[in-house]
């Protein structure tokens, strides 16, 4: 057999399928990138939590209470923090336009700087640059995980926001601020790939898993982020296809697919 001669001499035996999978992932990713570069866009399906954010902005306008955004305990290198800040950019822009205050607090000083820049940009874009003042909307309570949790809980108590958005990297610390959020009766929306169960316990609406990234791509309509998501979707679809094919073959009483996979 060609494969058996091939494996063992050039490819380590039993790893041919793994290598083919890696190549497939590579090719699909590159095709998606290529389409993205050519300007192709994809429509991202409706995300419940994103709709809830839009509703929340309206609710904040009705009640006159602010919207609080927490981008988590990680720094700017973390894609989750970046996705969270993208969401905050959109929220602060929309809020500035209709006169709702969008406030934030972060744990990393780099994130604080980025958040300040976002707020300033939002007020400028909304034509109200005079409303912006440094330190007015963004607060820092120290770099430690729990200092941040306690600080933001204090911020929630004093500002009584109508909506709280947790988007970024969170661990168990979120319980402290989440508990306070539910005490003041805020609608809580959250997404993280850190301690997802704690976020889901506290929040009324959640971004499950990678929905957080999808939401940030849907908001910005950035072609390259959409291309990344589309590329991943194709790989996921291939995985589902392989599973379904394997199940059908298995139901027919054969282990052919499992043997092919080397599992």
């Amino acid at each position, binding site marked *: 057999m060609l494969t058996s001669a091939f494996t063992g001499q050039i490819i380590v035996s039993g790893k041919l399928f793994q290598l083919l999978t890696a190549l497939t992932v590579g090719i699909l990713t590159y095709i998606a990138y290529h389409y993205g570069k050519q300007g192709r866009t994809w*429509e991202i*399906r409706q995300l419940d939590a994103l709709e809830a954010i839009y509703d929340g902005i309206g609710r904040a306008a009705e009640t006159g209470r602010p919207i609080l955004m927490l981008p988590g305990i990680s720094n700017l290198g973390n894609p989750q923090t970046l996705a969270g800040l993208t969401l905050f950019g959109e929220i602060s822009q929309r809020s500035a336009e209709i006169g709702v205050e969008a406030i934030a607090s972060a744990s990393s000083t780099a994130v604080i700087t980025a958040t300040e820049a976002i707020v300033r940009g939002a007020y400028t874009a909304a034509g109200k640059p005079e409303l912006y003042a440094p330190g007015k909307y963004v607060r820092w309570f120290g770099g430690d995980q729990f200092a941040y949790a306690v600080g933001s809980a204090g911020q929630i108590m004093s500002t009584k926001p109508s909506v709280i958005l947790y988007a970024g990297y969170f661990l168990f610390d979120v319980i402290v601020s989440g508990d306070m959020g539910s005490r003041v009766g805020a609608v809580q929306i959250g997404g993280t790939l850190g301690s997802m169960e704690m976020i889901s*316990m506290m929040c009324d609406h959640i971004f499950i898993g990678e929905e957080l990234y999808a939401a940030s791509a849907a908001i910005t309509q950035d072609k390259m982020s959409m291309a990344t998501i589309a590329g991943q979707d194709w790989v996921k679809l291939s995985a589902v296809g392989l599973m379904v094919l394997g199940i059908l073959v298995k*139901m027919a009483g054969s282990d052919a697919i499992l043997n092919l996979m080397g599992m």
Partner: protein
Amino acid sequence: MISTDPWVWISALMTICSFSLLYGENPLFRFGEYTYTAIVVAHSVVTGISTLNSRFAPLFSGAKPLLIIPLILGLMSLFVVWRRYAWIASFPIAIMIGVGTGLSMRALIATEILSNIAAVIRESGLILVGPPVSSLGYLIRVVFTITGVFYLLFTVAHKGPLNKPLSYLREIGKYAFLSYLGLSVGNAIMQHSGLATSAISRLLGQWLGL
């Protein structure tokens, strides 16, 4: 009997400092917090010194002179904190990114992706054998996993005639995630409850001798 060991007293003070968080922000908690941060960084330095001694022992004994390269690269990585010369650190960081990503990629494909797909296929063969409880379990595993992955598709199959039937699949997938999250919360409660018990029993037992 109340303990006379000074370390037990320090430990008790630390427990009280952190439990004071229950009353909100206060100087006692701040004291605990700064103690915590200080010891975390100091401990990493102490560990770092002893690790360097161990890792570069073959270099200094002359057994492996090639280790001079990672020694230089390691020193270069410290420049990351110095804004003006931070570019020097980019070379060692490149090695860390390259090796780390390569290793995780090959492992993700074998472990996270293929072994889980294989597990689903194997389990589908077990649905029709065994007692009803385990059959139901295997059926749930297969259906929930596939629909769960389906839920996390964002750009395909959410338009056109297929949308309606597929939206039911997505709905099932969503419930798979919700049951996972709900059960994890239950388990997390168990863990934190246990940690609270151990902290309080230490306080009561060792310090106050109850």
